[in-house]
């Protein structure tokens, strides 16, 4: 029971808005000590895990390319392109991106799009431009649009990737089932991701349509 105190540290730390990195280290120390580990061993195992998970931080090497593109006006160009398209609404744009992201993920291409690769340089400025046609957007609206662009990327990724046979979560499930003597083909697991993928699309597309109407209504009233 005592090892759960680390979870309490995490929740309290996030609620009290301490620096999350401090909260994480504090939680690791509390959890490890509750399990009877000594502090040096805890720091060592944390350091080992940090070194083993460096691949998570590789994504930052795309920033020089994004910086170059932005200095040469990519975001402005994305806005102009959308502004020149009749019928490009934010709802249609983000719904189109949602489908694309789900389909790409479903064939295993999870890393070709993402927050650094596509959302910041392309999707978010395009969404702002599409919503801003003939409407004055407030700063809060712009925040909401960018947040919704990032949300659409996440939802497209999460509820597309499990349709692919060889994605990490499918292999994990296969492994856990096998440890318990149950043998299931990856295909049997991945087909059962399809109902949820369709439902996720329907729910989120509906929300995007309502989001578009909300922005348009506010603009019309202003």
């Amino acid at each position, binding site marked *: 029971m005592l090892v*759960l105190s*680390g979870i309490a540290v995490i*929740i309290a730390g996030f609620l009290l808005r301490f*620096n*999350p*990195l401090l909260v*994480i280290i504090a939680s*690791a120390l509390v*959890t490890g000590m509750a*399990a009877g*580990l000594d502090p040096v061993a805890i*720091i060592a195992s*944390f*350091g*080992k*895990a*940090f*070194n*083993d998970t*460096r*691949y*998570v931080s*590789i994504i*930052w090497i795309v*920033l*020089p390319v994004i910086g*170059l*593109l932005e*200095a*040469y*006006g990519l975001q*402005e*160009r994305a806005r102009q*392109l959308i502004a020149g398209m009749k019928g490009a609404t934010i709802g249609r744009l983000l719904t189109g991106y949602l489908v694309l992201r789900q389909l790409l993920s479903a064939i*295993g291409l999870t890393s070709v*799009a993402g*927050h650094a690769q596509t*959302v910041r340089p*392309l999707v978010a400025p395009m969404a702002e431009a599409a919503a801003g046609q003939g409407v004055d957007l407030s700063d809060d609206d712009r925040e*909401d649009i*960018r*947040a919704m662009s*990032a*949300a659409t990327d*996440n939802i497209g990724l*999460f509820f597309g990737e499990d349709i692919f046979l060889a994605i990490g*979560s499918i292999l994990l*499930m296969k492994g*856990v089932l096998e440890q*318990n003597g*149950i043998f299931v083909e990856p295909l*049997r*697991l991945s087909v*059962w991701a399809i*109902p*949820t993928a369709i*439902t996720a699309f329907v*729910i*989120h597309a509906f*929300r995007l349509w309502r989001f578009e109407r909300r922005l348009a209504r506010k603009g019309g009233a202003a």
Partner: protein
Amino acid sequence: MITLTAVYVLTGLVFLAFALLGLRERQNPRRFGNAAFWSLLAVSMLAGDRLGDIGNGVLVLLLVALAGTGALGKASAEEPADLREARAARHGNSLFLLALVIPVTALAGSFLFKTFPGLVDPKQATLVSLAAGVLLALGIGQIWLRPHPALPLQQGRRLMDSVGWAAILPQMLASLGAVFALAGVGDVVGQLVEGAIPQHSLLASVMAYGLGMALFTMVMGNAFAAFPVMFAAIGLPVLIGEHHGNPAVISAIGMLAGFCGTLMTPMAANFNLVPAALLELKDKNGVIRAQVGTALPLLIANIAFIYWFAFR
């Protein structure tokens, strides 16, 4: 054979460049803090395998100390808006082609290196291709746009500083997960959940399984950590053992119920907090707020799907 090690070296050199370029920015009073932070990350990328476990642990403590004491400052050296507009007008829509170099290279490389193994470790084909795409895009950009050679790194450094310490949150949370596993947190949670459900009601068990996946994922920030725990606590003994459910449905849709939890927690930093920093949102939880409206109905749908599809 090209493996992740080569990509780590490239990443380390990029972080090192960020550190050095930031030092020149005199209007940032905390530039030494930023430089120290990115230098430490460069060391981790370049020499992490030679530091030993305790060495890496000390490196993490130094990173946390810098972030926790507010030693990092925000930087600004954006190119002026009118200059960007003028360049955008000059180069037109071909800028999009350059933007697509990274995704297209990642795509082509993933297929190519998996079909023709030998040059690149097939298991890491996508990450190696991503790095190749970055180098290719920088090369083409340099020849075509002729920027000052330091401009890409200088602008990349500006973006990196605007993300700040949040850049290592995902790695930190993954490491915390490892400590939790070592301490047996999952087993304790599993026992708690097992004791809490009324064993004989099918609907209550399915709900406990789906909600448990989502909640434990929110705590751990990762459905991968929650799945083995919830499966061992409810999925296997109750849903499969007692009620004879279909293991494929219970696993696959249970994992997706966990993904609904991922959408609602700051612990899933790389999906929720990092984009908020990257898009320069004032509200750090803005992305989570945008996701809750999709995640909650979808969680209910997933629980219903398990109930309908697994026990026919």
